[in-house]
């Protein structure tokens, strides 16, 4: 199913995301780590050595990544833990500033996920509204889709849970509700960070179907996953990141085969 997405009907390929030599550096206040005792911190301040070494450590997470994504593509990001996949996604979404280099996008790419906006002490009902507003939906849009979101999550299948605080949900239920809220909005450029592996088997099938729908509506989809199967099922192109560098960029089969050979699977 992947191949027919490669070219637009007109035959011309329209770029939606262009990454031009992107570097991303995190600055971490390494408080508590290593020689992080109070006296060590004090002596560091008193010594007043060059700003950088004063407890601030730099983590160069993405190093010079360049690629162009086109409309209709579904691109998988693979790589071992800490290789910079999620960081790169956030930079594409404009959520993390780049150290140097630029990301050009068509419209506003969005990350699939609203976890951070939801509050465990509020009812599921209020979280649906809050999450929708946080993603930039209008009150009317949320009202229209409210029932769909609740039905999709299946939260109410075992009683009226949507009017209870989210902290009373099981972890699976909470994950299902989060995915349902996040997947309620249509996006131009959609980025999914390992969202497929939530909930029970029945919900996984339902969410995979929903992602395929979102993919059809979205211009371009990025998927970060450690499951080579879900990458094979959804993506037609794969970027392989390792230590923040783009190691390989090509058709799914080729890259995954090389990746599996390298990681010994």
């Amino acid at each position, binding site marked *: 199913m992947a191949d027919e997405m490669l070219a637009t009907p007109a035959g*011309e*390929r*329209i*770029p*939606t*995301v*262009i*990454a*031009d*030599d992107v570097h991303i*550096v995190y*600055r971490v*206040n390494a408080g508590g780590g290593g020689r992080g005792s109070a006296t060590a911190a004090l002596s560091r301040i008193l010594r007043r050595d060059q700003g950088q070494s004063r407890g601030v450590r*730099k*983590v*160069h997470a993405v*190093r*010079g990544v*360049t690629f*162009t994504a*086109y409309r209709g593509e579904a691109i998988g990001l693979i790589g071992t833990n800490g290789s910079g996949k999620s960081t790169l996604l956030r*930079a594409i*979404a*404009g*959520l*993390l*500033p*780049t150290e140097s280099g*630029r*990301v*050009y*996008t*068509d419209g506003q*790419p*969005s*990350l699939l*996920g*609203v*976890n*951070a*906006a939801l*509050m465990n*002490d*509020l009812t599921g009902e*209020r979280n649906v509204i*809050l999450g929708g*507003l*946080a*993603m*930039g939906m209008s*009150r009317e849009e949320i009202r229209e889709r409210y029932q769909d979101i609740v039905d999709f999550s299946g939260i109410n299948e075992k009683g009226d849970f949507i009017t209870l*605080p989210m902290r009373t949900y099981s972890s699976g239920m909470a994950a299902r509700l989060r995915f349902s809220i996040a997947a309620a909005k249509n996006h131009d450029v959609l980025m999914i960070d390992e969202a497929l592996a939530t909930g029970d088997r029945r919900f996984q099938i339902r969410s995979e179907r929903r992602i395929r729908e979102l993919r059809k509506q979205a211009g371009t989809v990025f998927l970060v996953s450690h499951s080579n199967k879900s990458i094979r099922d959804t993506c037609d192109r794969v970027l392989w990141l390792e230590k923040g*560098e*783009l*190691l*390989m*960029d*090509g058709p799914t089969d*080729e*890259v995954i085969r090389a990746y599996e050979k390298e990681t010994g699977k």
Partner: protein
Amino acid sequence: MSETTHHGAVATSPAPPVEDDLPPAQLAAAHGLTVSGARPGLADYVRQLWGRRHFILAFSQAKLTAQYSKAKLGQLWQVATPLLNALVYFLIFGLILQANRGMSTSVYVPFLVTGVFVFTFTQSSVMAGVRAISGNLGLVRALHFPRASLPVSFSLQQLQQLLFSMVVLVAVVVAFGSLPTWSWLLVVPALALQFVFNTGLALIMARLGARTPDLAQLMPFVMRTWLYASGVMFSIPIMLRDRPAWIADILMYNPAAIYMDLVRFALIDEYGSSNLPAHVWAAGLAWALVVGVAGFVYFWKAEERYGRG
């Protein structure tokens, strides 16, 4: 940092036929792509923020509700907390320290309670502002919205908190003999000005706190100093009678003192205009406009940098 230049990728298949291999920047320009995460212009920014007004309001209400959702008495604490606060201050300053110099009890108690509530409004806006970005990095790194939504939302939460306190305040004021009059309506413009001032201050603190989270540890001391210097529990002109006049003037024109005096003047019958510095409304307006506008612009200037490390 190692500078291994790994431009582009080791493409294993023939590179996709990019139309005439334009450099990225030109290709982007040719198709009208824009830089992701660039800071919008000031007017655009205001428009985006206005577009998010429902989120800002919902977020502030959600925070307010979540605050007491685990307590047995629930939302009753919204009113009980300020009431207990006022009681503690009355016990210490009214009964034990007798700080009511120059005021009868019927003026001093409402004077004190008003001062505590109005100052708390500014204090908690500042404290919430410091953590607005640094305490919500998850949100900032996951979703796209004008970042000013957070500090604005937090000071809106404090405004709603203050409205609960006003219920207590009205009860106290009436209990000590000031009955409702038309002058009570002056509370609305006074608190509106204070809200604008607080929001500006919260925006400034949010940018500072995003860079230096340590401010959250420092600010309680700054705020306590400000509290004691603003005449929350004593009358500045009476307390500083024997000192040079300029000291009292500076203290009285500080924004916290101005807004407290405006609300006291509006609510308490016997607290007449003689207790207020000259041009008090103009001072309140000036503080609100200057800090409000400056805070907004200052926050906006760093918009694209929030959320980094």
